[in-house]
């Protein structure tokens, strides 16, 4: 069973994230870069299956600038067997259509039985790539899973949407996206970190995937305006002296909020 996990390097949500006001793109230099937490959980789902099944191979796939290699290697240190990293200048600022085209092509080239992704990345927060990739590959997608059961020929799980909780399943090959209801990822240990240095790490360009990243005959999403919102200012802060509940009631009433 070949499980490919889609992971992404994102600006650390613990810091202030900055957009370049000219390009609208994330200012990568402004924040520390980390492996997206939801991607780590996706790796964990794959690894916990591999822990129990010797025939399982976990491969990481990421489309990211060259500098993301150190971040992607963390997934190898956790226990994934190999990584494929798509790097190409033409992908700078790629929209969702191009990103999904690239990832689908890479999945086709790498081969897979099961693809596992996060439900939403913390920087893009798009949450549409899993479905886009599944459509391009012509495979079923099971998104927003809060529980996943992987079997030799099939995958199933619990999917919680805004209106319903459902059980869904599909034969392999298939794609699943998981939510943060699934367990936190394991930490890489020293042995894992050392082993990661020797694991296969392939870098592919758009040419390797036979994709033209600069086509103008397909619609692209473009940013047309950007503005920074002034940060919020702190207001009054009182220390409770036994009457804070009363004072808050007064504040709410004065502001017609109660």
């Amino acid at each position: 069973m070949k499980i490919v996990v889609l992971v992404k390097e994102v600006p650390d949500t613990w810091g202030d994230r900055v957009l370049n006001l000219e390009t609208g793109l994330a200012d990568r230099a402004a924040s520390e870069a980390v492996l997206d937490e939801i991607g780590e959980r996706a790796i964990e789902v794959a690894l916990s299956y591999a822990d129990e099944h010797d025939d399982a191979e976990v491969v990481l796939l990421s489309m990211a600038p060259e500098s993301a290699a150190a971040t992607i290697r963390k997934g190898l240190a956790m226990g994934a067997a190999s990584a494929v990293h798509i790097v190409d200048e033409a992908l700078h600022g790629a929209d969702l259509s191009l990103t999904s085209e690239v990832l689908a092509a890479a999945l086709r080239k790498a081969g897979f039985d099961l693809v596992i992704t996060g439900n939403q990345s913390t920087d893009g927060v798009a949450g549409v790539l899993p479905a886009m990739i599944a459509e391009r590959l012509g495979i079923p997608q099971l998104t927003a899973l809060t529980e996943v059961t992987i079997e030799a020929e099939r995958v199933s799980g619990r999917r919680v949407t805004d209106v319903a909780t459902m059980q869904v399943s599909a034969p392999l090959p298939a794609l699943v996206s998981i939510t943060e209801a699934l367990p936190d990822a394991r930490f890489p240990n020293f042995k894992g970190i050392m082993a990661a240095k020797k694991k296969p790490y392939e870098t592919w360009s758009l040419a390797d995937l036979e994709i033209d990243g600069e086509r103008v005959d397909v619609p692209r999403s473009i940013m047309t305006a950007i503005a920074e919102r002034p940060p919020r200012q702190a207001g009054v802060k009182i220390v409770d002296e036994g009457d804070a509940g009363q004072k808050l009631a007064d504040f709410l009433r004065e502001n017609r909020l109660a």
Partner: protein
Amino acid sequence: MTTFANDSILVLLDTTPDGQLAASSAALVGAASQVGTPVALVVGEGADGAGALGAAQVLHAAAGDGLTVPMVDAVAAAVELVQPEAILISNSIDGRDVAGRLAARLGLSVAVDAVDISRDDQGVVAHHSVYGGAYNVQSATTFGPLLATLRQGAVETRATAAEAQLIPLDVAATQAPAASIDSVEPVVVSSTRPELRSAARVVSGGRGLGSAESFALVESLADALGAAVGASRAAVDAGYVPHALQVGQTGVSVSPQLYIAVGISGAIQHRAGMQTAKTIVAINKDADAPIFDVADFGIVGDLFTVLPQLLEALDAKKG
């Protein structure tokens, strides 16, 4: 043959397992009415409700078997028929899946999580609130219809009710493999409290509540104020409330008139989901909690003494 206006905006309305239009529907039609003529699409039951929301033309198709794919088949058929200027879909879990597959199938670009839709001299544009409201961004597509998912609870415009013309839609099902839905349980929603995403007032509780039992204090305050209930991720992880109530980066984004954070430290990922609220109140016993940096009215104190007193004071005024 039915004709459609040149400025038709196709809106896919989500439905609930019991055949009703989802709560997000009114805002979708409302947003469409800001920029053109709304044409609603309902897959499965519920089409009769769309006229009251302001869609004069309502396409309806039978629900097919399997996850997402039958919906995509229907929207693709509707796009072909209507030739809309924009396609609006709810930024719900189901909506995002449909939008994603549709974009890939029709070769469209997709604008996600729009908080508003407007028109400029080039066409229809989507507005986004990025990085927890730190930036306002507008996006468009280089050509072709704009496909966008609309954040639930973000658009307040409502269209005037219309006498709906119901139009059956012929859908040629594709052979695209879909996951099967083996069982469905509807989510039970509180009928008395407002919906979190669109509520004018929200009271959220965090790990500071200490237990699911104590979380009832947050619920009492919410009910006293006619507010929705929210929570931090730590409160959700601790099992005090379901994940659907999580506010923040990986939960719901809210922009209410009033947001009260009780026993919540105000980690950056939590603030990302609530810092665009008009007025923020925080109750926390740690004077250095980051939530105070964004609070208009902060109380450094024990929630177990402040909340009961507040409830009493609010009650006294009423009686």
